[in-house]
């Protein structure tokens, strides 16, 4: 009898703890219910809905111009690209050809948005694993893009710059020179990022071999964006379904094969260079012309179903519209990249430690309003 009591006292036991909804590593109001055995994770169960606003239901009562404004509030770091997705879907449905000038400006702004989003990610990624300096460096460079955006459309986060039919305003006269200045500046900063964090031995030990995702699982879980590409899964929407001016630029898809946290990190660093290259190819050749083609004040899409996918900073965003021919969509579904990327978290975190989970979460680059919609 005595021995059994002693043994049961030392039996390893599973218990659960809450990570979030106010945990800094979850970058928003996401609650993870962790089942752990000591420090080893047995199960990760995400609890969602803390900021769910049911944007899809709101879309059913709003006009298409209004819907564009709601998309800013999903993945707010890719707001321009989200806007573009809805505008492209509406324009395709109306068979409306936007001017070349609009296409080129949309692509440049989209890539600037991607750099800005990755800057923020890089900053908080370092912070999550204990390198606080990166936070300030990332925000310093992101600030320059925010200033360009502010001058272009008056907003720094939720741009609302795209409208069905084109752009709300033409670009500011300073736009081209400021973007060029930024590109030249940022090219000197990426090597600095590498020196500071990428080549840091402690950082590499924290990230290499952690949270490994195989290519088959990446496809099965619907991973997209840098998360999919780090597993060797070629999934860049810009390559396979080019939109706006992306069919006239050449760039390499950032691919890694390891599938671990460090590979996801490297993909995003590589994407900095590719985005800069896309901007450089277009910035000197912005065609002259109108910045907008007129549309009806009340947009009615012809009866039918429309699907548009774009590559945001987090991966593949899909807009699925079912129209019955009225001024509101009958059903509108956003396939958000973060939602699918979150679903694989349990798969890659089990067996690791809580500290590894923080590093893994950081490279999934979740934006919670994008998941909660």
């Amino acid at each position, binding site marked *: 009898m005595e021995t059994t009591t002693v043994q049961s006292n030392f039996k390893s036991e599973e218990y659960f703890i809450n990570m979030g909804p106010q945990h800094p590593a979850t970058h928003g109001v996401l609650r993870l219910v962790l089942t752990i055995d000591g420090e080893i994770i047995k199960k990760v169960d995400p609890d969602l809905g803390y900021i769910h606003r049911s944007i899809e239901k709101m879309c059913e*009562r709003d006009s298409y111009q209004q819907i564009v404004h709601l998309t800013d509030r999903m993945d707010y770091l890719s707001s321009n690209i989200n806007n573009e997705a809805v505008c492209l879907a509406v324009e395709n449905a109306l068979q409306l050809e936007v001017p070349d000038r609009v296409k080129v400006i949309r692509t440049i702004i989209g890539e600037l948005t991607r750099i800005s989003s990755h800057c923020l990610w890089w900053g908080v990624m370092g912070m999550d694993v204990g390198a606080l300096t990166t936070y300030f460096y990332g925000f310093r460079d992101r600030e320059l893009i925010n200033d360009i955006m502010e001058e272009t459309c008056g907003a720094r986060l939720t741009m609302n710059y795209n409208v069905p039919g084109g752009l709300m305003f033409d670009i500011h006269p300073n736009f081209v020179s400021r973007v060029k200045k930024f590109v030249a500046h940022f090219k000197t900063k990426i090597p600095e990022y590498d020196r500071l964090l990428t080549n840091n031995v402690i950082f590499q030990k924290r990230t290499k071999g952690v949270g490994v995702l195989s290519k088959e699982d990446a496809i099965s879980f619907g991973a997209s964006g840098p998360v999919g590409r780090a597993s060797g899964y070629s999934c860049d929407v810009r390559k396979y379904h080019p939109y706006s001016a992306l069919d006239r630029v050449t760039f390499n898809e950032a691919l890694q094969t390891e599938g671990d946290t460090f590979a996801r990190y490297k993909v995003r660093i590589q994407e900095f260079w590719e985005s800069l290259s896309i901007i450089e190819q277009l910035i000197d050749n912005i065609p002259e012309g109108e910045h907008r083609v007129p549309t009806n004040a009340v947009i009615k899409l012809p009866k039918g179903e429309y699907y548009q996918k774009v590559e945001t900073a987090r991966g593949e965003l899909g807009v699925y519209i*079912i129209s019955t021919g009225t001024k509101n969509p009958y*059903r509108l579904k956003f396939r958000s990249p973060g939602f*699918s990327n979150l679903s694989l978290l349990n798969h890659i975190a089990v067996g690791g430690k809580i500290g590894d989970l923080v590093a893994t979460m950081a490279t999934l680059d979740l934006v919670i309003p994008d998941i909660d919609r």
Partner: protein
Amino acid sequence: MTNEALQNNITKWFPDAEAAGLTFSEEESQFLNIDISPNNLIELMSKLKSNEDTSFDYLFCLSGVDWGEELGVVYHLESTLHRHQLVVKVRTPDRENPTLDTVYSIWKTAEFHEREVFDFFGITFTGHPNMKRLFLTDEWQGYPLRKDYEDEINMILK
């Protein structure tokens, strides 16, 4: 593979197309649309993924839809090998207790997407490993994305 070739291939799998509720349509959509009865859903989906010529390994969108009379699910599929795309639709007329089979065993991404559909449309997926609400609380009454859902406090109607 072109839409026509896809259609020919898939038709061969179901000798009795009428019994399987199999219909094809390309109207009002940029994709080839397939309608299938709930009983034959898993058979069709498994073949779409495992067949070498179709090889639809990427389920990129899964949406619940309330068509008024019927509730249903729309699956958007893509092959990462052949890069062709396809839409599969399945409908159930039962609004009281709608039930469909899960495709979780074929594409793991369906786990979260089907929970979302359950949360907002009330469609139960049999065989799903964790069929409970995803965003809303367990006590929530009704399914908000259904067309007949009413909530005087939280919904602003025009």
